[in-house]
């Protein structure tokens, strides 16, 4: 009985701390940063180069992707915690503006939603799984990538982002 209790408590602790495990799944990346020039859902033209000197999270997502929906609230919180020096660009993967708008009205992301109608940008960024994320430093270099959803506002993630120049 005692052994079972210890096992149960251990499993509980593991699953609680599992919320923070995702940070360790960030993969360091070295290589070229592809261009990103797209129109936002609000009709604004957005160029990655306009955000030089800011820290960026470029997130590729789709309305049919349940993990994408799950991580959006933590991305909202991350944006709030990081302030104006940090920018999230969430690139929808080739869906219609109407589909994206319906999703946005429901899930309420508080950051820029970009439309990659023909998939040309996601092809250049080599995104073949969803969600896929890139952390771009202030010099415009991709520093980390992540496949899958995560708790973006975890303390570990914020510490890592804060450490990037």
């Amino acid at each position, binding site marked *: 009985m005692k052994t079972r209790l210890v096992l149960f408590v251990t499993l509980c602790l593991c699953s609680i701390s599992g919320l923070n495990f995702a940070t360790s799944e960030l993969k360091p*990346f070295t290589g070229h940063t592809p261009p990103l020039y797209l129109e936002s859902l609000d009709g604004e033209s957005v160029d990655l180069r306009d955000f030089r000197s800011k820290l960026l999270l470029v997130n590729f997502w*789709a309305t*049919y992707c349940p993990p994408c929906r799950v991580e959006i609230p933590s991305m909202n919180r991350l944006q709030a915690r990081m302030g104006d020096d940090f920018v999230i660009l969430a690139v929808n993967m*080739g869906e219609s503006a109407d589909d994206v708008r319906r999703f946005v009205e429901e899930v309420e992301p508080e950051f820029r939603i970009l439309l990659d109608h023909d998939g040309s940008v996601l092809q250049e*960024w*080599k995104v073949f799984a969803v969600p896929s994320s890139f952390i771009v430093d202030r010099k415009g270099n991709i520093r980390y990538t992540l496949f899958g959803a995560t708790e973006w506002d975890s303390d570990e993630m914020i510490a890592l982002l804060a450490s990037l120049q």
Partner: protein
Amino acid sequence: MKLVLAWLAVTFFIPGVWARDTGVMTLDLVDEDSVDVRHYKSAGDKLLLGFACDSGNGVAEMAAAAMLADNEVEVWMPDLLSAHFLPDLKSSLREIPDSDVVRLINTAMDGSGKFVYLLSSGSGSALLLRGLAEWERQNPERLNELGGVVLLFPRLYAASPEPGREPLYIDAVGKTKTPVIILEGEKTPNKWALPALAEKMRQGGSPVSISIIPGVRGYFYKQKNPYVAEDIVSNQLSGLIKASLVRLDWLRRDVALR
């Protein structure tokens, strides 16, 4: 009374349930193993050998097989997972030897006298493709006797695609010559990798044609909460497959004319 009417409706009016020549036959594999094959007999000259993820036990797959048999395409669905006492998991498919696929293709070709086409979906595509590559290696003189391959939402990655990196495929990709039709849902990130996948497959000699099905996700006929479009397309699965067989015939003729 309502129950009786429902029973009568199910028994007599649902396609594929009544008066169809279906059953299970047992075929020999290598090393004294054997495999149960669910079959849907047909008088037509085409035979579809389906390496399904769920061994043909899915409702949509069984209904499609029955409809195909009504439309002159005999269907065989070997249960290779059970043959090796494996659980119905993606990882189990890696445990199935290529030799099983080779043996089944030969048995279907020689035993039926029909023109054989191959079908698989999702992770089962990797099993089919590596078995096909081995069959082609052993039977170079028989390549024209095989009708072709239909892959429904194939998952042929060697590992999960990493953001920013080219996807890596299993070794069998690019090692076949048989014509391939790929059917993929519009609502899946995998569709964006299809041009690269097709190019890689063509390097081995396989002519490849891709069709994107609007409004559906991958595994569309297995979704627990299907979109309206997925319900519609699932009901038309047999038609999609039959049309793919016709397109494979065109692909083969294109190659022969070159």
